[in-house]
């Protein structure tokens, strides 16, 4: 079912390139008897929380019916840690936002299938939040991860990212950088990068079709997958080793690592960083005037191998509206806010304009966007998407807690040479064994 990524990619391409004049009526100009308070847990991400809060403020002054209040929550805690006490206290936030925990939330939220927003998104980008035919959430944006690069450094070393098509090419580029006195790559040991994103490189390349990739998850859950004999796994492992070998930074297993990795790439001492486009606002703030790009991480030595020329593009999270503890007015307000954010001119400014202009720098996934992303990395992602060179985010289907178990333990252990590659394969197999097949609609 290659269709899955194709449809998503096509819609994304049209959303990026075609500018349709959207009917952007200001959100409910009607006067209301009194304002309804609508709560939302979190600010989508911490990186753009100021910009998001500015959007909320603008929304609250733009109409007279609803006051949106964000509950910051504790960013150190997981989504479940934040939301379960609120449900237990019968004080559930009307809007919640997450990805992995969608199966846990599916029976507590509204079906958004027939909303204006859902109709503006392609089925491919809605799929991960479609649980048994119920559209439990609508997407925030599309994100990509892969090898980020500092364009100034690569230009100075005479490296053209487009010419890196195989793992061998990548190693040569690393060697060239080192010969120029630069550090090749900052390969971050931060657990979520390893546990969710780096493992996804294997899962997304594990089969050519969507169905084939889910079958790999099935066999992992059933406990009859042997990773060590899988040629894609071997290539992935060789890439892991390659990145470790040319890693210019020291392994740091704590939270301070994320900021350090951004500082390193921005400083101009490093050529590459394995991360995602959500770091672009921080990179641009740290090194104004420098372009930061994104490219594929080729794991195979064959240029034509599946996935070698592609980057994983997916939806990082979905907005959900509570159906159990919120009033009709609160639910209407939640939908009104989200519709305003993604369809009105004022809202779109906050969504898609770069951070330098006060926006969140999101890549639009709703058709009819008048504001188009202008940053270098966003344009590069658009090119990958337009060329159909995208990989799936299989990490969307990881069971709750798996990326933590794998990322914090076995991946970090292999990263710091505490265990062998066979141990790593076994640890990942064990972590998956017996997990609920939410990707087959089994309830969590």
């Amino acid at each position, binding site marked *: 079912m290659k269709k899955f990524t194709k449809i998503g990619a096509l819609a994304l391409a049209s959303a990026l390139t075609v500018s349709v004049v959207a009917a952007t009526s200001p959100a409910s100009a009607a006067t209301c008897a009194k304002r309804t308070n609508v709560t939302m847990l979190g600010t989508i991400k911490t990186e753009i929380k100021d910009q998001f809060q500015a959007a909320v403020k603008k929304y609250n002054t733009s109409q007279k019916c609803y006051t949106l209040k964000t509950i910051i929550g504790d960013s*150190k*805690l*997981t989504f*479940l*840690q934040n939301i*379960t006490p609120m*449900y*237990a206290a019968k004080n559930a936030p009307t809007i919640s936002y997450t990805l992995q*925990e969608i199966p*846990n939330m599916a029976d*507590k939220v509204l079906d958004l299938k027939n909303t204006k927003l859902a109709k503006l998104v392609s089925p491919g980008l809605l799929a991960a939040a479609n649980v048994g035919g119920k559209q439990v959430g609508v997407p925030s944006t599309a994100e990509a991860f892969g090898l980020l690069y500092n364009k100034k450094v690569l230009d100075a070393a005479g490296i053209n990212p487009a010419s890196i098509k195989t793992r061998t090419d990548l190693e040569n580029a690393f060697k060239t950088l080192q010969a120029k006195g630069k550090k090749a790559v900052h390969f971050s040991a931060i*657990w979520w990068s390893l546990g969710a994103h780096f493992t996804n490189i294997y899962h997304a390349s594990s089969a050519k079709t969507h169905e084939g990739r889910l079958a790999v998850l099935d066999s992992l859950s059933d406990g009859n997958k042997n990773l060590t004999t899988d040629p894609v796994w071997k290539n992935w492992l060789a890439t892991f080793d390659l990145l470790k070998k040319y890693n210019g930074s*020291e*392994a*740091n*297993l*704590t*939270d*301070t690592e994320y900021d350090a990795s951004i500082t390193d790439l921005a400083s101009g001492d490093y050529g590459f960083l394995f991360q995602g486009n959500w770091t672009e606002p921080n990179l641009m703030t740290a090194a104004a005037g420098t372009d930061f790009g994104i490219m594929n991480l080729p794991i195979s030595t064959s240029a034509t191998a599946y996935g070698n020329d592609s980057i994983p593009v997916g939806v990082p999270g979905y907005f959900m509206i509570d159906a159990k503890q919120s009033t009709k007015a609160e639910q209407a307000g939640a939908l009104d806010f989200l519709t305003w954010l993604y369809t009105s001119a004022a809202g779109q400014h906050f969504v898609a304009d770069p951070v330098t202009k006060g926006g969140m720098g999101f890549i639009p996934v709703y058709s009819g966007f008048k504001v188009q992303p202008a940053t270098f990395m966003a344009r590069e992602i658009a090119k990958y998407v337009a060329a159909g060179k995208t990989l799936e985010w299989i990490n969307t289907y990881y069971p*709750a*807690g798996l990326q*933590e*178990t794998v990322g*914090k*333990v076995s991946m*970090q*252990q292999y990263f*710091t040479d*505490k265990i062998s590659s066979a141990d790593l394969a076994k640890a990942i197999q064990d972590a998956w064994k017996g997990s609920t097949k939410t990707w087959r609609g089994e309830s*969590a």
Partner: protein
Amino acid sequence: MPSARATKRFLKFALVPLAIFSMVLVVPFANGFYLTFTNWDGFESSKFVGFSNYTKSFQDPTFWATLRFTTLFVVVSLILVNVVAFGLALIVTSKLRSRNVLRTFFFVPNLIGGVILGVIWQFIFNSAITSLAKKYGWTLFEQSWLNDTNKAFWALIIVTVWQSSGYMMIVYITGLISIENDVLEASQIDGASPLRTLLSIKIPLMAQAFTIALFLTLRSGFMAYDVNVALTGGGPFRTTELISMHIFQDAFANGNFGTGQSKAVIMFLMVAGAALLQVSVSKRLEVQR
């Protein structure tokens, strides 16, 4: 037999505190205990599952590893915190001129919240010490202590001792200054050395302070959470997760609310058992004046 009047008087004074106590402690505790026998998923529970949550908890090898690690942490931190605190108390009750400044100085770390403290020390271990070590060639500190299980354990101990010894110092100061001067003077006249005075006079007469301080450190050792989360985050490789953090992770990160809650009940029984044992032993060592 309590008369109706006595009951009435009791209720008049105790009703409000009793009601609050029941609401914030007894009821949640009973409810939590009840939930361990159900298939609770964090949101709601629909059926009884017997003891299966407890069996699953005991079958979890990481739970046993956490128990071992927590026990080690409690024992080491208990000893070090109290030794350091008692030492500090002796210093600041001596005839030093700067003793009042020092009291404040030693107590201040206790006023900093655990999370902030963890973040500060994370910076010290990850960046400050490592960069100094590279400059001056201290091989022991060149790698961040938080990347290694054994060193991360000592990092936890150092921060815990630094944070809580000031507080325990106050308890010991109270004990030391409550000893009557005439007893000390009598021992001086009898020619007791300072060490003999400390061992035979001061310590037995302030055994109560030890009971309190040991109980407090035992309890806080078992319950330690904020420093654990903020400093090591359970890392490296989830080997420095203390029991509170393990329970929190199991319930809220992995979504295993049933086993998480039953582990919390097991933890309660352990802490209660250890505390009862410790208090009954220390009580026996106290002397009546």
